[in-house]
């Protein structure tokens, strides 16, 4: 063990860990399952069914609650802490003569993360994996680690703006298609001969109009495949996973980078390390929730409208309100983080904070474990509950996993230094078996 401490570039001893960061990370990690569980457990049609169905009942209320309060924010929180963790990793390690530089370890670590992300997607078969992207985007963050928090915040906001511009662009393209479609239809009514462009415009718009409606054939296929054997599910997901990773990396970059940069800025200001005053945290909580939650309710109803009255919706909004959903995300995410910091300081539920920080300390293990448990529970080669539960019922599974992970992590860390997958990851990064037992 002595030798382990002497090795400069080596994992952080647990005493040095910042408990508040671990607690928030644990919270975010458990929260992520709320967003992911529909992906594990049911076909995406549920979305349409709930939006077009009655505005009451457990399913609707559960959905509304999750969408308004949590959608995107747990991922956001997790991204923020990933950014903060990157700075921490680089800060904690000292350069050693005759050893690869800390930067080399940092990049190796991320390459392994990309690798584990691919395992999560292509072996555990969880299509919603984020490790792949975190590994890649973390490689960009490195160059910004010494920047002043103010600049990090500016870059983060610039990323958000860029994402918004992209989204506004796409919306204007949709509206343009609608306009050409109306023109073409008018020409058709007057029995004029349509140009090739007009023909295309008609089919293009009809395609757009059809999009949110579920395709029963595809749904049935999906259900059948997900209830198949491992090889069936595997060959079903491989091409789609590849497509996801391509688009997620190339187009989804802004969404994740923005939160990572903001997280680095907040870390620089001492937000996550419990360095701000109680009133500051309280103010940010009120501000975050005060702006984010009403806006969230508004967006939810916009969404209901958008799906139930698709055509009118496109005609009504010159600028899609969803363009601004990033703002809702950022505010609620900051609200959550402030709330947790207040809870952490108040020492009101110390046992819960301790358990949460245990979960956060083993975040990597717990994240992969969620994939393993949920794919086993829902997929055909496991217990096969895919598509067999109501929307609100899948949240019983979430609660079960939460309780399990809170207890398991607390017990595990009583005997071991790291979570099991953390241990594998670290050993691979340093290319040397790491000590495990406490």
């Amino acid at each position, binding site marked *: 063990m002595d030798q382990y401490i002497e090795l400069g570039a080596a994992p952080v001893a647990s005493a040095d860990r910042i408990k508040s960061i671990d607690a928030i990370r644990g919270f975010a990690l458990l929260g992520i399952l709320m967003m992911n569980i529909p992906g594990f457990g049911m076909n995406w049609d549920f979305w349409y069914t709930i939006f077009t169905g009655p505005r009451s009942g457990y399913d609707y209320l559960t959905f509304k609650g999750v969408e308004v309060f949590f959608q995107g924010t747990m991922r956001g929180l997790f991204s923020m802490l990933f950014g903060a963790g990157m700075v921490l990793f680089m800060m904690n390690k000292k*350069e050693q003569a005759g050893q690869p530089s*800390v930067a*080399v370890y940092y990049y190796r670590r991320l*390459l392994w993360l990309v690798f584990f992300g691919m395992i999560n997607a292509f072996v555990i078969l969880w299509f919603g994996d984020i490790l792949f992207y975190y590994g890649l985007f973390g490689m960009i963050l*490195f160059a910004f680690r010494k920047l002043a928090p103010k600049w990090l915040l500016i870059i983060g906001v610039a990323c958000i703006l860029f994402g918004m511009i992209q989204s506004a662009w796409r919306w204007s393209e949709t509206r343009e298609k609608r306009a050409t479609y109306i023109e073409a239809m008018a020409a058709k009514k007057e029995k004029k001969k349509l140009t090739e462009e007009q023909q295309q415009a008609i089919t293009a718009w009809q395609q757009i109009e059809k999009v949110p409606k579920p395709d029963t054939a595809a749904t049935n296929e999906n259900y059948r495949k997900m209830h198949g054997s491992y090889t069936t599910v595997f060959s079903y997901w491989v091409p789609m996973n590849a497509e996801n990773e*391509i*688009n997620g990396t190339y*187009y989804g970059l802004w969404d994740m980078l923005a939160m990572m940069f903001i997280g680095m800025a907040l870390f620089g200001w001492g937000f996550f390390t419990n360095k701000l005053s109680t009133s500051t945290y309280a103010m940010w909580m009120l501000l975050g929730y005060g702006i984010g939650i009403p806006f969230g309710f508004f967006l939810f109803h916009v969404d209901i409208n958008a799906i139930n009255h698709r055509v009118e919706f496109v005609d009504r909004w010159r600028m899609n309100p969803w363009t601004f959903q990033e703002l809702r995300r950022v505010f609620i995410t900051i609200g959550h983080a402030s709330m947790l910091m207040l809870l952490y300081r108040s020492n009101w539920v110390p046992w819960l904070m301790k358990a949460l920080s245990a979960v956060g300390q083993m975040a990597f293990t717990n994240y992969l474990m969620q994939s393993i448990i949920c794919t086993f529970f829902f997929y055909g080669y496991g217990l096969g509950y895919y598509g067999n539960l109501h929307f609100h019922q899948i949240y019983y599974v979430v609660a079960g996993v939460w309780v399990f992970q809170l207890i398991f992590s607390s017990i595990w860390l009583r005997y071991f230094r790291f979570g099991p997958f953390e241990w594998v990851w670290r050993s691979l990064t340093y290319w040397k078996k790491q000590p495990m037992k406490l």
Partner: protein
Amino acid sequence: MLTKPKLMNPTPSDPSVAAEKTQSPHHFSLSVVTGFTLLGLLVTGIWDFGGFSANLQSFYNSAAYGGNYKLLTAVSILFEGKMQSLLGIVFGAGIVLLMQRKSYPVPIQGPDVLIRRQIWFIILGLLLAFILLWPEDLLYPFGIVGILLFAFWKLPSRSLLIVALACTLIYSGKLFWNYADDKSAYQKYLAVKKVEKKFADDSATRAKKYPFDKTKDSASQKPILAQKKLADSLAKKKDTLNSRQAGEKSIWEGLAKNLTYDSTKTVSQNKSMRAGYSKLWFYVKNKSQAKESGWLYRMGVWDIGSAMLLGMALWGMGFFSRRFSSSTYLITAMVLFALGVGLAWLRIHNNAPHLTDYAKYVESHLLPYNLFYPIEKLAMATAYASLAIGLINASFLQWFWKGFAAVGNMPVTNYVLQVFLGCFIFYGYGLGYYGRFEQWELYTFVAEICLVQVVFSVLWLRYYPMGPLEWVLKCLIYRKRFSNTFDRTVSTTN
């Protein structure tokens, strides 16, 4: 955090570094090979600039005779893909060279310099792709793969070779996998075809079963006729392909159609490429995005990665420092050339049947025509580098080497210049010569652009220590304004 005493010492002013660059043997070899690569990129790059498209190539390739075919084949054997691999090799060597530097002009750590440089490459690549509208840009993918592989630079050469080999095999495997996908698409297509044939037969039998006799009194036949019509329409409803079957049919048809020459495609492509800037922008955008996302993920990482890792390994072995004797370099070059040309011949031999009748090819061939392409490229690229280094002392070639080295000493400038000239000459927003020249005529442009680049580089480096873009990059990376002039004391010793 890092306290390297040498770092704090800002003495080495840049001219001395530049001077060292032109003097030390490994820098000179690397510059020569880099310059050769940059000019060589044009040999196949001109296809994309000038409008000798894949569609046209498949026309000549499937005919398999004539002067155009011979020229295309020769270029394909000698250059296609090889220059990109060679660029990967020198790029990989360059990464190690940068990381091994003992000092930097400002107090900074090596990894920071490298990662910042790579990020600027990515940004520059995006500008080339979306401002100059060059979809085949290499700065973007090289920037990204350089970041991915950064952590490997300190591995011993042997391990690097193993990792490079693994990447090559994965690349090859992916080509095989694609082929296997095509094969299964073909099998599905055949199955759908069978169903279609059955439908056709069914309706023929139905027609026979209920013959409508026109000689009989039509009034009495009316109810029978109506019944028949109903039965027929019901049967037809059952007898059309469902959406899955139609999809499976169209996937293969699209695949096969994509390979065969289609003159309308060339016409419409020429029209689009000669259009004004905004139209051209939308036309090229999708291609650039596809290359930067899908291609990079599926193929590019392995393709570029294997070459970069090989380059790192070669650097570590002292390949660029002329560690081996000239005859060793020449023999290595010959052996690798033989291997590369052999594999290229195999590829081209199989390409013609692959293009003319893909269905037949899929039925009769176990392996794709390009399975060994990744190995071919690396072998031939290494052969070129080896040949150049082996001949670097030959007195009759000194003029050439100096020209190449000048180009190679300002690689970014020359790459951007090349893209700029190519786009300007051929695109609609420039002179608009896209698709107006024969293949062999395009090579006069290649010679012209090469000449411009060599002369420009030699002249520029006579007056300035660094190329213009190299200087801009240096200022951006170190976030400080440097001067780009020779230090007098150094230039006299040079």
